[in-house]
């Protein structure tokens, strides 16, 4: 950590002037009430149009002792603990170009502020896609899904973002512009910093550009719905399918308190291939009821963030366990929720990653329930992290607002335990951001 004393903290109009001089007049505006993060308001919003400008802004902020909150589409800005300080919001939407889609090499270079939907539309022109299904793709940006590591059910067959990102430009708080990885899918030259920045919630540097490997769009898709009997039946079916020689692109169990669970399988392939796969699954699953479903069911995860009814408070969390423990989690959730008279819903995926929503009349019981769930899950080697409703400023667009169970009075640590490597993580943070310019206090263990 630096021992130098920070220069006097600039603020107000004087600060605005300095920022405009660095990044241009139209790249700076005063922060509005809607720009607050976790209840902490920022002073200025800056929107650089090049990584050079981002670098000058970051270096300036670090030298002036200002804290910076990177922001993409804002859809998951409320993820992470509230920042200890927030002076500048660094918005990446000014960096939104698709730099290069070398479709024959199946890679794409894209700036951080490009939305996922826009990227997918461009890739689809060559019948390709980035094989991820993140939340709110019309709003979510490349930088945002990378920093929050948000992918969906496709992860089962295509891996997570860590497996798809092959190159990255990261601007560090001291103004260093660092590239790592590259444009080729196979590359072991140097440390894998794209993985380090993925899921780091913008606490090490600001992602300005990413290079991904992309995949062909499937010739066709088909969604099947299975109706296993009860949680034990569901668990057995999931494991049977995971451990079979039948490739499922996606797999998710949808559970709701007091209702029969359903299991959805997403298949990909040619018409002949899909028909054959469906037939095989039907035969093997006999006599379990099997029907066709629409692709709409894959929105079930996103629907967990819909606003609760009047007088009810909702909260959502992500969990990760071994696939064989998924239904144990559901059973525990059901038990704990009943004790607290809470309702719950869950979307549990074949990778062992799942999403829970609880609803209660008292905000405290929803938060308490997550605390109990976390204890249970962590003792089995898994994790539970909170995934709040989008901030009010963007909520209207995405989910029409809603009452969140989380608040300053009802706080719960966002991340839970980070294990015995936490001191090492803190050491990495010190190397990249010794002044704690970026997202101070928002990450695990107060990083």
């Amino acid at each position, binding site marked *: 950590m*630096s021992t*130098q004393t920070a220069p006097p903290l600039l603020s107000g109009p004087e600060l605005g002037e300095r920022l405009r001089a660095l990044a241009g007049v139209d790249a700076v505006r005063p922060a509005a009430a809607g720009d607050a993060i976790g209840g902490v308001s920022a002073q200025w919003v800056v929107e650089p149009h090049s990584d*050079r400008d981002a*670098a000058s802004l970051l*270096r300036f902020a670090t*030298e002036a002792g200002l804290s910076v909150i990177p922001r993409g589409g804002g859809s998951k800005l409320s993820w992470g603990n509230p920042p200890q300080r927030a002076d500048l919001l660094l918005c990446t939407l000014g960096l939104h170009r698709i730099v290069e889609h*070398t*479709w024959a*090499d199946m890679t794409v270079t894209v700036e951080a502020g490009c939305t996922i939907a826009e990227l997918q539309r461009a890739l689809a022109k060559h*019948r390709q896609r980035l094989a991820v299904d993140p939340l709110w793709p019309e709003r979510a940006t490349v930088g945002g899904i990378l920093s929050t590591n948000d992918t969906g059910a496709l992860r089962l067959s295509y*891996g997570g973002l860590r497996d798809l990102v092959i190159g990255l430009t990261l601007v*560090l708080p*001291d103004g260093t*512009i*660092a*590239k*790592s990885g*590259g*444009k*080729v899918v*196979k590359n*072991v*030259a*140097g440390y*894998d910093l794209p*993985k*380090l920045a993925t*899921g*780091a919630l913008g606490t090490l540097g600001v992602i300005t550009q990413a290079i991904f490997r992309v995949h*062909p*769009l499937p010739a066709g898709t088909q969604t099947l719905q299975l109706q296993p009997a009860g949680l034990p039946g569901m668990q057995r079916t999931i494991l049977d399918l*995971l451990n079979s*020689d*039948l*490739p499922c692109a996606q797999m998710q169990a949808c559970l709701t308190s007091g209702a029969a669970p359903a299991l959805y399988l997403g298949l990909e*392939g040619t018409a002949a*291939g899909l028909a*054959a796969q469906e037939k095989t699954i039907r035969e093997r699953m006999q006599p379990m009821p099997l029907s066709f479903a629409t692709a709409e069911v894959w929105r079930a995860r996103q629907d967990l963030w819909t606003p609760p009814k009047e007088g009810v408070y909702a909260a959502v969390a992500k969990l*990760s366990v*071994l696939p*064989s423990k998924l239904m144990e989690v559901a059973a525990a959730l059901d038990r704990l929720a009943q004790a607290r008279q809470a309702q719950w819903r869950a979307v549990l995926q074949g990778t*062992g*990653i799942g999403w829970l929503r609880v609803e209660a009349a008292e905000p405290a019981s929803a938060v308490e329930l997550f605390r109990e769930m976390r204890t249970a899950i962590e003792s089995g*080697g898994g*994790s539970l992290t909170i995934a709040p409703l989008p901030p009010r400023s963007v909520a209207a667009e995405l989910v029409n607002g809603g009452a969140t169970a989380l608040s300053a009075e009802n706080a719960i640590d966002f*991340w*839970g335990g*980070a*294990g*015995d*490597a936490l001191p*090492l*993580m803190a*050491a*990495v943070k010190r*190397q*990249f951001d*010794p*002044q704690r310019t970026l997202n101070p206090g928002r990450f695990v*263990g107060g990083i």
Partner: protein
Amino acid sequence: MTQQPSNLSATSAAAGVSPAVLAELRSIMGERGLLTAPVDLRTYECDGLTNFRVMPQAVVLAESAAQVQAVVRLCHRERIPFVARGAGTGLSGGALPVADGIVISLTRMNRILEVDLENARVVVEPGVINADVTSRIAAAGFFYAPDPSSQSVCTVGGNVAENSGGLHCLKYGFTTTHVVGLEVILPDGQLVHLGGSALDPPGYDLLGVFVGSEGTLGIATRITLRIVKRAQCVQTLLAAFNGTNDAGAAVSAIIAAGLYPAAMEMMDRLAIEASEAAVHANYPPCGGLLLVEMDGATAEVEANVEQVEALCRSHGAWEIRRAKTAAERTLIWKGRKAAFAAMGRISPDYIVQDGVIPRTRLPEIMDEIATLSDEAGLRVANVFHAGDGNLHPLVLYDARVPGQEAAAERLASRILELCIEKGGSITGEHGVGEEKKFMMSKMFAEPDLETMQRVRCAFDPLHLSNPTKIFPRPRLCGEKGGKYAPHPLETAGVAERF
């Protein structure tokens, strides 16, 4: 490569390991676990890259994480550098010892600790041989996907350190895709867990950084792997073309058609000749041989293989053979896997390179390599992972002919420069190690390398763990995170940081 192996010069004033420290090592390791006699140490003086050799002060043969931890603690206390070593098959000098340091061999830690088929996880010690993982789970219909050609001898710990690839990583991904958790002894002797058995544990993905860090961030002592269920149907075919350009065009067409092979490999005439001499896979004598494997659900694979065959034919394949039995498939791959070692049949010496290019640049680089080869008067055999643009040019030479070795090294370096010029990489799977560390500054700018070294400073501020590899110059970790660092774009190429 021609560059000075810097650790040779850097360690001419080697402090060495004192008799007191040796005694302490002996008390940790026991008589059986410590080698100090020059005749014993000689086995460890190089890895698969045999033109770099350094004698270590001692070698410890670890049998447990506790021993590794005790030895590393001692090294930390005494500031003795150490180098982890698996089977020593690395091709970039990663396991090359440091003259004033010790080697920590992990081959005795070779137990498979847990097999959890339900969750497709296997936990191993680092010295487990890659192929032994698959052998252990094959009967249950699973396999461990990363399959380097050296898989019958190399260790999982070495694979983790190099992020090794294999024939099937086109579809299944590299080692990093298949490692979910690690127990690591950090360079100060602390034991930590990176990743876990479930995905996405909270915090930085230090697991992702450790894999591929070539032994510079600590020693992996326990590794949790993800295994894969065998597909319902596997089809392997070989297609003979007149040259690598035709075969390359077929590869592009297969990709463009949205087909997604599990493996797609290519060999040129010289490589085929050598491989045939060694293992008689019965390859057709041709200018460009393409090997393609498709796997998945049966109906899907059948339809796709037809399409691959049609595309090969329309791009000039004059013979196509499909493996009809598992034995035939094994034979097809055997010829490919034996390619490196087979060079010994047609040349006394050779250099293996590992460049990567965007796949579409394949035809042009093949022409350029041919020109370079003519100019240098040296033969170059080509074997490559065509699906992902990973080239293994094999530069053939005779060390007994004065000047040939140097010419071969120049040619090999030139090929890597071509890869960089085409937007590729100097290494796709063999690692930077000792061999290519000076090429790193050609591929990355100084701020890029400096940023990577921040990670090393967090893990190993004293530079004890395989200290001389990967980076052309170590970063002093006392240096400030660069509060007043000049803007990199202003300084790029102008000022040196060190």
